[in-house]
């Protein structure tokens, strides 16, 4: 095949006209030889156009496999003639003839013949042969029962299925279904239904899954590979933050930067007015959180008490305290029925809303400066229990797990799906830990500054694909969670940015709070969203585009 390019699949290459081939080659002699060989191919349909074993620029795609999955895809799409033509033209058969025979036997219900053919395929794994035989004979069994040939079904069960000596539980279920026909309907797996013809196709699919993929090409393999490639492209797209981005097959997917919130839409209190002043705490308030039903607030005074407020009336509903001790942190249960709080003797207490203490975990569970969170299923309570360790306490199983770090931990943030924890360290690093099954360090993020204060970070964006953080250099930092790359460092604040919060329902909105006494709302560069109104009394505002 001389000077022809090697990086096109065999089927495509053969379809080039001889005129086109001239442009690729550099001599008439080559053209002739190509025309000659293609003619040869027509005359000998079953001869593979040997020589090239692989296709693609990297040389990792085996041509025979490639053509087979294309043929399979053509058949799945319903293009039977195209599929057959491809098999003929390439000389590569989708399935060997014995497999074709096997498939036909299964679809036509020639059970005994199909089991015999199964043994002739040349499978090396005994278990596969037995499991496949079991499936076929099970189908035979059920079809007999359908036709009310009970004795035949029984004979099949006794003499053909049982001797296989596998899946004894299923054998018992089958014998039960003879005894009580009504039971038969519950015993049947979902694949079995009233229409027998459809069952056989399903059976073939089950057999396909059982047999090695080289013997019987799996269904929708080409679609699966393409979906995998698209998935990888999407994961690699660092700015992917919008649902309506359609991924085309014609070009690699890559979003532009404009999907990340990077424009200050609003600074401080435009359009927001003071509703209530909640007075009562004697010490500085270290945390505020809304109840799950958004009607109440829980606040904690530093080494003081925890107070529960009604948000609409501003009234203090309850005070939670412990004699001689001070509360240091607080949070709501996911169902809003109880609250929990860290105490300055390192314990964690749980209270009913009415003030009755439910539980108290004594011992080294929390520190004076420690975040305290609960997973959304209410099962795990998470707290910084030692300078360099985070405790994950399973309330029901009473199991304790620890994330151990080398550096001092300053704060942490739990992802919405409870699978990840973002840990902020003293040495200006943010570590991403997976907390689902095993505790594993997944990623590190660097670039922001932290020397004195507690700086908070959070997850955000579409499917929490981004990590955002405050910083003492007054910038808001945004990283791509998967790759760890720093995407944005947003200027605008004139003081240390202490914390950030990404809108959970709008992936294009981010809020940041700073020592410059402003809160900034960041969004996309959409002209209609810019604020132009003026305010006195020292509130800063932004005209967009910073």
């Amino acid at each position, binding site marked *: 095949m001389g000077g022809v390019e090697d990086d096109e699949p065999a089927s495509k290459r053969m379809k080039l006209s001889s005129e086109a081939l001239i442009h690729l080659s550099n001599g008439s002699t080559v053209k002739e030889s190509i025309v000659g060989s293609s003619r040869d191919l027509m005359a000998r349909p079953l001869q593979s156009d040997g020589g090239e074993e692989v296709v693609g620029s990297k040389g990792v795609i085996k041509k025979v496999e490639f053509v087979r999955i294309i043929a399979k895809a053509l058949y799945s799409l319903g293009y039977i003639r195209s599929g057959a033509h491809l098999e003929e033209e390439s000389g590569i058969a989708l399935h060997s003839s014995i497999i074709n025979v096997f498939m036909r036997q299964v679809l036509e219900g020639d059970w005994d013949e199909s089991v015999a053919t199964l043994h002739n395929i040349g499978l090396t794994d005994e278990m596969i042969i037995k499991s496949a035989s079991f499936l076929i004979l099970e189908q035979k069994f059920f079809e007999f029962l359908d036709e009310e040939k009970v004795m035949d079904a029984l004979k099949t069960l006794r003499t053909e299925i049982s001797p296989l000596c596998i899946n004894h539980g299923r054998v018992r279920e089958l014998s039960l279904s003879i005894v009580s026909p009504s039971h038969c309907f519950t015993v049947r797996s979902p694949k079995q239904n009233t229409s027998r013809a459809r069952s056989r196709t399903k059976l073939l699919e089950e057999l396909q899954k059982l047999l090695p993929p080289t013997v019987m090409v799996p269904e929708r393999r080409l679609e699966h590979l393409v979906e995998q490639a698209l998935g990888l492209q999407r994961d690699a797209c660092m700015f992917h933050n919008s649902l309506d981005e359609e991924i085309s097959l014609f070009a690699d997917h890559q979003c532009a930067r404009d999907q990340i919130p990077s424009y200050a839409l609003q600074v401080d209190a435009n359009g927001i007015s003071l509703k209530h002043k909640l007075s009562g705490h004697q010490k500085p308030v*270290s945390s505020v959180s809304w109840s799950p039903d958004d009607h109440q607030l829980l606040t904690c005074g530093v080494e003081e008490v925890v107070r529960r407020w009604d948000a609409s009336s501003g009234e203090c509903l309850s005070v939670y305290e412990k004699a001689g001790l001070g509360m240091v942190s607080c949070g709501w249960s996911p169902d809003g029925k109880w609250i929990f709080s860290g105490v300055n003797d390192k314990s964690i207490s749980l209270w009913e809303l009415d003030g009755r203490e439910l539980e108290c975990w004594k011992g080294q569970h929390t520190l004076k400066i420690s975040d305290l969170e609960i997973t959304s299923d209410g099962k795990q309570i998470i707290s910084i229990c030692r300078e360099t360790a985070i405790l994950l306490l399973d309330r029901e199983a009473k199991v304790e797990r620890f994330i151990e770090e080398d550096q*001092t931990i300053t704060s942490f943030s739990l992802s919405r799906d409870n699978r990840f924890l973002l840990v902020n360290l003293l040495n200006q690093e943010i570590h991403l830990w997976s907390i689902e099954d095993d505790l594993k360090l997944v990623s590190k993020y660097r670039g922001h500054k932290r020397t*004195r*204060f*507690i700086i908070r970070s959070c997850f955000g964006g579409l499917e929490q694909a981004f990590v955002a953080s405050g910083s003492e250099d007054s910038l808001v930092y945004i990283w791509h969670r998967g790759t760890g790359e720093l995407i944005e460092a947003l200027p605008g604040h004139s003081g240390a940015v202490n914390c950030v919060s990404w809108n959970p329902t709008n992936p294009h909105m981010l809020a940041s709070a700073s020592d410059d006494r402003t809160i900034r709302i960041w969004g996309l560069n959409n002209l209609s969203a810019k604020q132009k109104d003026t305010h006195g009394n020292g509130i800063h505002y932004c005209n967009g585009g910073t």
Partner: protein
Amino acid sequence: MGRIFMITLEGRVYSCKHCFTHLALLDDIISKSFHCGHGKAYLFDKVVNITEGEKEERMMMTGLHTVVDIFCVGCGSIVGWKYEAAHEKAQKYKEGKFILERFKVLGPDGGNYLAIQESLVGGSSDADDA
């Protein structure tokens, strides 16, 4: 201002004279034989709740060292220095360790320390050839 991150130590604690922020434990003292402009200074293995200044080359009683000044996170007052690098082999043991000036801290018993009236040249002094 943002919320300052402060570690709470347990045991016999040396704390900042001005704002009482915990700085170090008595158990982490390596040597008490150091001197500074205000009198005695102790060499500590570990110090918390401090921020570091810029690196400087300083000539001390025992030779040239690369040091950073350290400041209390609570009030920002200077409390001592940290040895980043020692240029002579015999002084290498100081690397990564901290000096707290006795005059700047309250001892575990809350005791203060009266500074010596003489002021030595340059802020730092050094010593201890252990």
